[in-house]
């Protein structure tokens, strides 16, 4: 599997990822219960954090209407349950910008999902996440203007998006909105770390894989399943995102040092060359490893690489070898190029045949 990749047929890849990342228990008999539990939990998070932010008590329609009447988002009361809501909006503003920049080379994320979150798109008393962001921008803009005593009127056009990641009209949701919700809930549940840029690049391929599962029964739950798998994956790589300059075993600096040690083991001339040129792994391999190569290749190639990374039992040892293979594949250029040339080569990795790179990595792993 590591070498050949996982066949897509019948959603086998999506299934394998769920197993490999421990979202599904190994025993098939336990699947239904596990799935039910995790999907239910996710639905609850959506209800608590997205549909009724602030965690109002009571679930009846009447209670909810009441809440919005007396404690609405524009209320300035310090005890307003919307306080947290406003704090969240900083994070949300960031996520919103980033998910709208997701995989622009394919049109998938701009398209509507067949399975929008019903509670979100059909409710009439609350806003969708991206609308929250919009309103807050308008508010802060007018506040600032008042503060400076300027008379400019708020330009209605200012929030108009220039790109195609537009929000779809009522009853519909684009895929990027779904991803926005997943990231927002993850950030809420992990306040210490919150949202760090790059997480969007990690969640993207997972969601894409699940939401394009040929089997509609799986596809329907793509959102909840993505959230679960993403959370599990993040628990393995979260240190790449937090302690970015930490040397602990799980930290990225340790990983980068290990990478150069492995390169030296495989190809000492190349390793010395990079060292002499002061081409430190921090400059290029930081992104490679933190994002599991998701910014270096096209989406199909990234997904293919992830088959192998997830299948790696000693997770991410194989990633190290893939990175070594990438450098060795372009060694002729690296040996003759100057610093600037090499830097650009490694930061804009050429579109090589991914199978060759993975085969090379496999071979290196055995050495």
């Amino acid at each position, binding site marked *: 599997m590591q070498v050949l990749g996982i066949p897509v047929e019948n959603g086998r890849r999506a299934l394998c990822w769920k197993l490999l990342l421990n979202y599904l228990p190994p025993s098939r008999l336990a699947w239904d219960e596990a799935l039910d539990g995790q999907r239910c939990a996710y639905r609850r998070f959506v209800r608590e954090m997205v549909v009724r932010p602030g965690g109002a008590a009571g679930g009846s329609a009447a209670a909810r209407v009441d809440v919005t009447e007396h404690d609405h988002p524009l209320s300035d009361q310090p005890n307003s349950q919307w306080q947290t809501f406003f704090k969240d909006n900083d994070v949300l503003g960031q996520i919103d910008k980033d998910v709208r*920049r997701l995989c622009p080379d394919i049109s998938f994320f701009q398209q509507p999902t067949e399975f929008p979150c019903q509670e979100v798109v059909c409710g009439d008393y609350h806003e969708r996440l991206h609308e929250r962001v919009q309103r807050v921008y308008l508010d802060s803009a007018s506040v600032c203007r008042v503060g400076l005593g300027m008379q400019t009127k708020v330009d209605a056009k200012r929030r108009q998006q*220039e*790109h195609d990641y537009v929000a779809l009209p009522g009853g519909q949701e684009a895929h990027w909105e779904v991803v926005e919700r997943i990231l927002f809930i993850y950030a809420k549940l992990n306040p210490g770390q919150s949202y760090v*840029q790059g997480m969007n690049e990690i969640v993207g391929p997972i969601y894409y894989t699940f939401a394009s599962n040929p089997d509609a029964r799986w596809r329907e739950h793509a959102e909840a399943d993505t959230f679960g798998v993403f959370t599990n994956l993040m628990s393995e790589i979260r240190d790449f995102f937090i302690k970015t300059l930490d040397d602990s075993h799980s930290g990225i600096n340790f990983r980068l040092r290990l990478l150069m040690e492995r390169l030296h083991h495989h190809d000492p001339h190349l390793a010395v060359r990079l060292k002499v040129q002061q081409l430190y792994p921090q*400059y290029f391999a930081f992104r490679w490893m933190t994002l599991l190569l998701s910014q270096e290749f096209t989406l199909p190639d990234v997904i293919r690489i992830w088959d192998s990374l997830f299948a790696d039992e000693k997770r991410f040892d194989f990633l190290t070898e893939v990175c070594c293979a990438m450098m060795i594949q372009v060694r002729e250029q690296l040996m003759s190029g*100057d*610093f*600037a040339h090499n830097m650009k080569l490694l930061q804009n990795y050429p579109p090589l045949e991914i199978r060759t790179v993975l085969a090379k990595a496999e071979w290196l792993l055995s050495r």
Partner: protein
Amino acid sequence: MSYAYLFKYIIIGDTGVGKSCLLLQFTDKRFQPVHDLTIGVEFGARMITIDGKQVKLQIWDTAGQEAFRSITRSYYRGAAGALLVYDITRRDTFNHLTTWLEDARQHSNSNMVIMLIGNKSDLESRRDVKREEGEAFAREHGLIFMETSAKTAANVEEAFINTAKEIYEKIQEGVFDINNEANGIKLGPQHSPAAAGGMAAGGLGGSQGGGCC
């Protein structure tokens, strides 16, 4: 192609203000409407001419998000110039300038030339920060100032080149110690310190940084 000097730059500022787009416009003369957000750093290089001399710019474009701040800090040392960028359509990016400046001053060498840039000047209808405010901030903190557009390329060339001119002048005045690489300045391969300020000769570049970008 050979060079007389090599200057190292760093580009800093909030996420989404257009740092990577500015770099791309300067090095490749193109605009990419949806640019990947920067994780870690991105690198660019270009040759320019100042006072008849070839000057090579090596530019480090950093990630704007707070979470990456500690990485960004490690790039200040060894930079001769910094472009501090905000987005004229987003006041929050302007409000954060003080923090950026404190960071820059604390972690860089004291002679680093800082250029303040108000980017996205093509979006006049959405302007949220007046040009005068940018000018005032720059004056107050002793920075050079320009408004640019990475989209239309307006002033992009000038922003990078004027920064280099300022560094060059400081070298002429003897403010920069050009023999200390930590200042972000290097003499060209065939350019001995004694000959600094003399003619930039042609010939093959050295192994590092010699070739054209």
